[in-house]
């Protein structure tokens, strides 16, 4: 039977979702947290169903998280790591979609290095598709697991001040988080050097800061983004050393945020580049491990809903 609150076939992004839909996905995720912590971690919700992890880009944690989520729902899970060929990317992608579709999977979890590629694929298949990250566009399950983490720690999303720091320009995590947090009534700030701030970002409703001390002032949540090393060799940022000095999260900069501010990171972390180990490992405030844990619950909820919506179609 189709989910009453979230009737969609795919989860391609957060943009366009309503607060009710988002809350529903979070509520459904909540139910699996206890299961994941128990000894016997399996349900039969998706018994006999097939989930394919189709990853056109390297991933360890997200792919593992989707895989575990599928297995714990009792589904068959197949992992496909596909090498992308830059020459025939579009053609290969659609061919792959058509081929896989012929095998009647229930849900595809897809990651691709090109923005919009997951949508292109979703248009060609009959099953449900969940976006596991497309280019610099969206990473909806990451935003949901971040929101779940915040909601459980702070009891709400509405009215919180969330500072997102780092490579916003290239980050799909940041984009999905803007949409989700703003939809849920949080205040979103971004903090980055101007070279890593995409143009027109203010129009999305976020506040832009280039100074960590100002941007972190009285923040409830500090969300650090990973900065890839190839951006650090002078094209966007002069050096790792300079980046850490001005935009790396350490105790001194964190002192501007609220005393109970949470420290979040989507992983994998570059210690000493965007975050100091001292802060990353702060047991009280760092939610980095919790985010990974809740990621499985979120993906279980999403896979379950999409598989059921697909069966009802």
């Amino acid at each position, binding site marked *: 039977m189709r989910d009453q609150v979230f009737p969609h076939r795919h989860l391609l992004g957060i943009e366009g979702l309503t607060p009710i839909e988002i809350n529903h996905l979070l509520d459904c995720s909540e139910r699996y947290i206890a299961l994941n912590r128990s000894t016997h971690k399996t349900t039969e919700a998706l018994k006999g169903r097939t989930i394919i992890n189709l990853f056109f880009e390297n991933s360890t944690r997200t792919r593992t998280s989707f895989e575990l989520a599928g297995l714990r729902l009792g589904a068959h899970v197949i992992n496909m790591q596909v090498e992308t060929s830059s020459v025939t990317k579009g053609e290969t992608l659609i061919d792959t979609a058509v081929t896989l579709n012929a095998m009647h999977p229930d849900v595809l979890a897809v990651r691709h290095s090109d923005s919009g590629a997951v949508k292109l694929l979703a248009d060609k298949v009959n099953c449900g598709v969940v976006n596991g990250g497309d280019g610099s566009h969206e990473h909806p399950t990451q935003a949901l697991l971040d929101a779940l983490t915040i909601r459980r720690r702070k009891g709400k999303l509405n009215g919180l001040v969330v500072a997102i720091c780092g490579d916003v320009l290239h980050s799909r995590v940041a984009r999905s988080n803007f949409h989700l947090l703003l939809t849920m009534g949080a205040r979103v700030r971004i903090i980055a050097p101007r070279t890593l701030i995409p143009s027109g970002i203010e129009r999305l409703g976020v506040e832009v800061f280039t100074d960590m001390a100002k941007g972190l002032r009285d923040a409830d949540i500090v969300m650090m983004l990973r900065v890839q090393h190839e951006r650090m060799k002078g094209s966007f940022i002069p050096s790792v050393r300079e980046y850490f*000095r001005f935009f790396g999260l350490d105790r001194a900069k964190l002192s501007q945020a609220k005393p109970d501010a949470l420290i979040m990171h989507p992983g994998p972390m570059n210690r000493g580049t965007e975050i100091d180990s001292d802060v990353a490992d702060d047991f009280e405030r760092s939610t980095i491990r919790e985010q990974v844990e809740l990621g499985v619950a979120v993906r279980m909820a999403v896979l379950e809903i999409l598989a059921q919506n697909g069966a009802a179609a």
Partner: protein
Amino acid sequence: MSIAAPGKVAYINARIIDPATGFDGPGELLTIGEEIADVGRKLFEGKPPKDVQIIDCDGQCLAPGLVDMRVQLREPGEEHKESLKSGCEAAVAGGVTTMVGLPNTNPIIDDEATVEYVARRARKQALTKVYVYGAATKGLLGKELAEMGLLAEAGALGFTDATKAIADAQVLRRALAYAATFNFLIIQHPEEPSLANGVMNTGEISTRMGLSGIPREAEIIMLERDLRLVAMTGARYHAAHISTAESVEIIARAKARGLNVTCDTAPFYFALNEMAVGDYRTFAKLSPPLRTEDDRQAIVEGLRSGIIDCIASDHAPHDQDSKRLPFAQAAFGGSGLETLLAVAIGLHHSADMKLIDVLRRLTVEPAALLGLDAGRLAKGKKADLVMFDPDRGWKVVADDFRSKSKNSPFDGQPVQGKVLRTVIDGRCVFSATSGAVS
């Protein structure tokens, strides 16, 4: 070099000129220690206190020491052309009490250690206060951003690739955006390099002389392009040594649009034109090249109207061997510190500008632009002063320069306006009568 602790000094019978307040008239000034204690029309009622050293200015001008925002200091790396010692001695003889060096030393100023090295070496001279710009790109190669934040913390006042343009549009865009992060100033040598492989201004003269030209468009195109990127990034941008009439118009339009844009020019470009190249005079081989008479007049007008914010010496010392060559092979650049004030005062003698406005472009404007607490005569400010006779004529004799390099395009020319005394932190560091640098 002995550094006597400055006591109390009273400057009486002076014509006080302070562009910051617009004051130009008879007055007196008292310094105590390193600072200006007071300045006004009549401080002492003819009876200065007994414990004070009295300097009778005899009606001559007393103004803030000059702030020269663009000099090339050849130390470290090319001390045979100029050292911090010879450069500072030339500067105080020219009335310059603060100057800013370009990062094209060897090693290049693209790390904190070099910024600190120059600062420490300059402090030892105890003469003109020396600041530097940091490299905008690593190695001045125009490819990767330099560590602007760390360089600024070490003391760099702004960022530039010195005598090279930041030519790649994407690199400039990112340099501007990165600088805007911290509100740093980017200073551009505005010259499209693919058009600038000649040796003098493109035109009738270059054709007659058979010399390859650098068209005015090299500067015009680069400025037009840069200002699009400035508008896009919201950065602070300063165009160095503008030399064409169109450049003045372009900057005027950018300012009217509200862009955060400033510019300077050098005495070469308002006092000389391409005719100075004359008989293949390599001392007149400058970068950018000397332009047409129409351009020169437009630069004068730009200074008068204020579109051009500052005058900088663009001091570019070279040894004899770099200039005693066929024109095409000779180095670009002219010595400028010791002629800066006199040539600039020429704008006053030609009735183009009031003296106080000439000084404004040499003192408070560059200081404000660079965020330096200098260039004004106010209580509590450091006593950095220049005393000069705006009318006294003299002939430029480059061989008499204190600078190691004698490559002045003004060599042999008569000028009007002589530095009589230069004071830094209350201490006399140059006096024309003794000629000595104390």
